[in-house]
């Protein structure tokens, strides 16, 4: 989208509460992400990270969760809560956790199923430009792709829609470390290129730290710490401080780069 200037706040989440009927899974999340910025939320299982992303997109009727309080605004415009369609229209795209592609459709059909109604072929070529490797598999069923390729496809689809904000849930899940590093770097490059805001949720804090500008630690539905991750040298101690807040429960916490 034109007119996205780096550093301008794209999305503002204020006091977001998500509930599944009982206690709040997310209790008052407040975060801002600017264009061209990568922000990561880390936390242990059940901290409310996935719920936070789902809450930003909103829950459809019939789903168990609900946004009970809080405001999400994109470029200053407030989007109605609990309406995934409105969020997508406002320029938010999410890559969900685990099975993130339509496995019985081919790569091409996956693009088409996710493209806006009138936009077909252009959407595919835009997505394939971003990840040329997928071009070779365009007629293969997405269910037969490798884990990395599936992840790539999901990210390519989300990016082809040219969102203002991209939400990615557990990019590293189930992938080999080498692939995770590469995908993370690719993702960061694309986001800088397109100048969009990227909000990641990760358990693999170390891999995410390599591409993040800012990192938030989440525990029991709230943000308990925030660190600015500067250039590589300063990132180590900052990450260490952040993870020590979480009590070392985060995956790969033991493999912190010793500065």
């Amino acid at each position: 989208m034109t007119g996205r200037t780096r550093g301008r706040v794209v999305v503002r989440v204020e006091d977001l509460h998500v509930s599944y009927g009982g206690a709040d899974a997310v209790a008052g999340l407040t975060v801002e992400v600017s264009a061209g910025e990568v922000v990561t939320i880390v936390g242990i299982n059940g901290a409310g990270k996935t719920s936070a992303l789902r809450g930003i997109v909103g829950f459809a009727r019939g789903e168990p969760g609900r946004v009970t309080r809080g405001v999400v605004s994109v470029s200053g415009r407030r989007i109605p809560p609990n309406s995934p369609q409105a969020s997508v229209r406002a320029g938010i795209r999410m890559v969900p956790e685990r099975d993130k592609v339509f496995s019985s459709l081919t790569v091409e059909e996956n693009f088409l199923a996710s493209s806006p109604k009138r936009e077909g072929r252009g959407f595919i070529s835009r997505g394939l430009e971003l990840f040329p490797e997928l071009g070779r598999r365009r007629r293969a069923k997405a269910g037969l792709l490798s884990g990395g390729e599936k992840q790539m496809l999901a990210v390519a689809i989300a990016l082809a829609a040219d969102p203002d904000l991209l939400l990615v849930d557990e990019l590293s899940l189930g992938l080999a470390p080498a692939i995770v590093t590469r995908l993370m770097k690719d993702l960061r490059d694309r986001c800088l290129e397109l100048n969009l805001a990227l909000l990641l949720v990760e358990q693999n804090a170390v891999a995410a730290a390599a591409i993040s500008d800012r990192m938030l630690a989440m525990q029991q539905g709230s943000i308990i710490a925030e660190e600015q991750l500067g250039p590589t040298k300063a990132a180590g101690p900052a990450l260490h401080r952040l993870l020590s807040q979480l009590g070392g429960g985060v995956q790969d916490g033991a493999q912190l780069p010793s500065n």
Partner: protein
Amino acid sequence: MTVSRRGLKWVLCVLGLTAVVGVCDLSLSSYWLYTVNTGLLLAFGAIALTVLVGRVGLTSMAHVALLAVGGASAAVAAALVSSWALPFGSLIAAIAGTIAGAVAGLAALRLSHFYLALSSLALSYVVLYIFQRVQFNSSHSETGYSASASNIGPWAITGERAWLILLAVLLVIVVVLTRNVLKGYTGRAWMGLRDREIVARAQGINVAREKIIAFAATSAIVSVSGTLSAFHTGTVSVDQYDLSMVFQYYAIIILGGLGSVVGAVVASVLFSVVQAELGNVLTSLPTSMPLSNELSLREGSVIDVLMGLLIVGVLLFSRGRSRSFVPWARTKISVVSTQRFRSYRNAGRCRRGIGST
């Protein structure tokens, strides 16, 4: 290449149908025409079900109730207007079916799979119960309602041949429309929400709307086929609608390949023909054969058992994802190969590591 192939396929289909009609006109008895017509009437419901189950990933057991709704529409239309009874009845059925389907679609937003099947079965009971009360409290309790005036304006659809032509034309229209919908945005959205609803939502697909559209459209088709059946039979009575009839449709879509529209049509006609033929064989067994008396007396149950075994056989012995003989047969007749099949073939290649294009 693809376009010309597709064009060729349709030309072949139309030519084939014309040829079938021509051949039937010359040589086939009205008994055979009746059997084929029964199959074609089944095909409408089978297309609706194969789309709903195979493409959208929903279930429904409400076919019989929808057929009854169509039958009731036929009775109403026949009583009200005489010369346009058939189109008028179909229109009422389409509207009633759409409304019923939309209501069922609302239920599908909250229920899935087994629970959806059960609730649609329960709704079917309600519909049939109402139908039964209305019929038994009327003067038609014994004979049923008449739906013999099957006219389209000046044309009276009488005789199996006229029905064959009418049904073939309608079926071609339904098949073409359905395939277009499946190839377009709606079809991909349906398959998307069948595969993974959360992803569909995250990509801005309006899951609720797509589910309701799917139910409404397929229910309308089934209801209209109920109207056609009623006019074909000539009478409408609640005892024609047995809830177990829905299993026939499930059998057909399994034979035809889940989600395959052309497969559903082929399997419907085959189903009807095989069933009729089995009946003939069973009743004309030589009396010297052991059990022949038993078999011919219990013809209906024996046919059910044999058809059941056929379905189990198809499920057990068909290989790969296709799970049916119709997609399998397509691999042998490459001219009628479709997009859907091409992706099967690609899938096979990928598994064997030959490369995907």
